[in-house]
């Protein structure tokens, strides 16, 4: 088994020289595009995800990507680009969630109910479509190896818009995320912040779907941020850690999948999961040490 593994590696050109490996894989347009889009998505997911975890919106983020899937299926049905359907539905879903309010206790039930309905819609759209709706299905697991130059540009534009918006609202977003009631008392509009953030989350989800797909959005959007939350003593540290983990996992996943031909999304999710386990293990060890 090990010899076969090494044989696979060397037959695909792996050397222990990182620089030459990278130059090697980057002669291919599709790998460059994958790294470019992957980098942008990882940074955006690291930033947005940090606030998702802070605002306890993990389930909402997960639900949003599924709601987007229904939109993608609908778009394929009417002959539009699935990404536009994805974007439309995630935005609509996000807006609805923001407007419906913030009582966390009942929110899970509300979100779950809408989510189930949306998935049902998605199944209907796919059923109505004559032919195998591969374009919609491929969104489930991501198609990072099939990203064109114009896809990269679109991702870059979306990413810049998101990051710029986050920078502009940063302090207010942080305040409303960490200390809701006082922020509200100081005059910040909770609904306004909520709406803006959910829309940013919708766009971020839409571009992240290219990389890891609808089903695995957690891997980029939540887990790196969850790890950061357990470590960081300040928000700026937390953001940095979140971005770093998402980036390293994405780069590593892409790098490995070039030599070992399994899906990229699998490698990314596994890396992130292992990182999470390590941090949990490390922390529980610390707890048992005497202060």
């Amino acid at each position, binding site marked *: 088994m090990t010899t076969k593994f090494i044989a696979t590696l060397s037959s*695909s050109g792996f050397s222990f020289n990182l*620089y030459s490996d*990278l*130059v090697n894989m*980057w*002669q*291919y*347009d*599709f*790998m*460059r*595009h*994958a*790294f*470019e889009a992957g*980098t942008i998505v990882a*940074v955006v997911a690291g930033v947005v995800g940090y606030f998702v975890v802070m605002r306890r919106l993990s389930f909402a983020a997960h639900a949003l990507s599924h709601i987007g899937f229904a939109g993608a299926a609908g778009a394929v049905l009417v002959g539009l680009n699935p990404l536009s359907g994805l974007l439309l539905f995630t935005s609509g879903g996000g807006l609805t969630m923001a407007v419906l309010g913030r009582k966390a206790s009942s929110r899970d039930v509300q979100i779950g109910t809408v989510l189930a309905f949306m998935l049902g819609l998605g199944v209907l759209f*796919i*059923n109505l*479509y*004559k*032919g*195998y*709706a*591969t*374009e919609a*299905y*491929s969104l489930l*697991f991501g*198609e990072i*190896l*099939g*990203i*064109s*130059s114009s*896809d990269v540009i679109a991702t870059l534009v979306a990413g810049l818009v998101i990051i710029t918006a986050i920078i502009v609202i940063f302090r207010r977003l942080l305040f409303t995320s960490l200390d809701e009631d006082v922020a509200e008392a100081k005059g910040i509009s909770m609904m306004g912040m909520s709406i803006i953030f959910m829309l940013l989350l919708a766009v971020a989800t839409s571009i992240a779907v290219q990389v890891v797909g609808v089903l695995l959005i957690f891997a980029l959007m939540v887990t790196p941020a969850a790890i950061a939350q357990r470590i960081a003593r*300040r928000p*700026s*540290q937390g953001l*940095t*850690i979140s*971005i*770093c983990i998402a*980036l390293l996992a994405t*780069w590593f996943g892409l790098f490995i*999948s*070039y*030599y070992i*031909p*399994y*899906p*990229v999304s699998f490698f990314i999710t596994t890396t992130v999961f292992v990182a999470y386990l390590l941090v949990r293990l490390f922390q529980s060890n610390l707890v048992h040490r005497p202060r």
Partner: protein
Amino acid sequence: MKRSKPANRYLPIVISLIVVAGIVIGLARASNSQSPHQTGPIRIVAAENFWGSLASQLGGTKVTVTSIVSDPNADPHEYEVNATDARDFATANYVILNGAGYDSWGNKLLAASPNSTRKVLNVAALLGKKNGDNPHFWYSPVYVNKVIVKIEQNLSSISPANKAYFSKQYKALTTSLSTYQQRIATIKRQFAGTRVASTEDIFDYLASAVGLDLVSPASFTQAVADGNDPPTNSVVQFQQQLQSGQVKLLVYNEQTVTPLTTSMKAIAAEQNIPIVGVTETIQPPNTSFQVWMNAELLNLQNALNAQSLGQ
């Protein structure tokens, strides 16, 4: 009094990581000189091994062919690309796609690695078919003949120096294909009009070529092909057809298997209806297109014979 810590020490790390990535990507982009020169054999990549087999026979020693989908145990509709496939597409001189939604991952790979010198044959486009039409073109002898004409043309235009060679290969191939195509005519002469069932719409084109009356509800066979749940009334109808002795034969798609198709197969077995297996891709993978087709048709012919004798 405790002084606050120096400004965030992680931020420079992130920024440098991104900058380094940007620099290296820029370098790679700058040093990249695509369009590999035409030294050595023409590199053909076929999305599926049935077109790949035909291309291989047409190109002979002048080509190397890589077929992406060839696993006999996997459902081609659900194929997921990996980096090796993407590399193959990126370095191919000639790509053959089935089209009509059967292999849309292929379009994505082409877009991800644009190459103006690469030739692409989209079989569906050639035949004037679109997404939503039955994509199993290779089961129609008429379509197969059209496709090999086009492949020969494409090969000759990629490598004009070998035009005569390709022409010779073409003649040899058409002779070899005639075996299975004549068997089709034979079956048609003997058994035209016989009522048969099929679990998926793979058999549609071939059924009409051999003149068999395919009575399975279209809503069932299409749904299975599309990966959907067939409507309940179509399931009932299918079952009734099997149980009332209306069909003489069940053609069973062995690569697109669902719990429903499995249960239909079981019902057919109960009713002692002969079951003929067909596959989406070449079975076994290392034989040629025509040997595969011929074997399947032989099975069909034998089953029809046995049916007519035993009944």
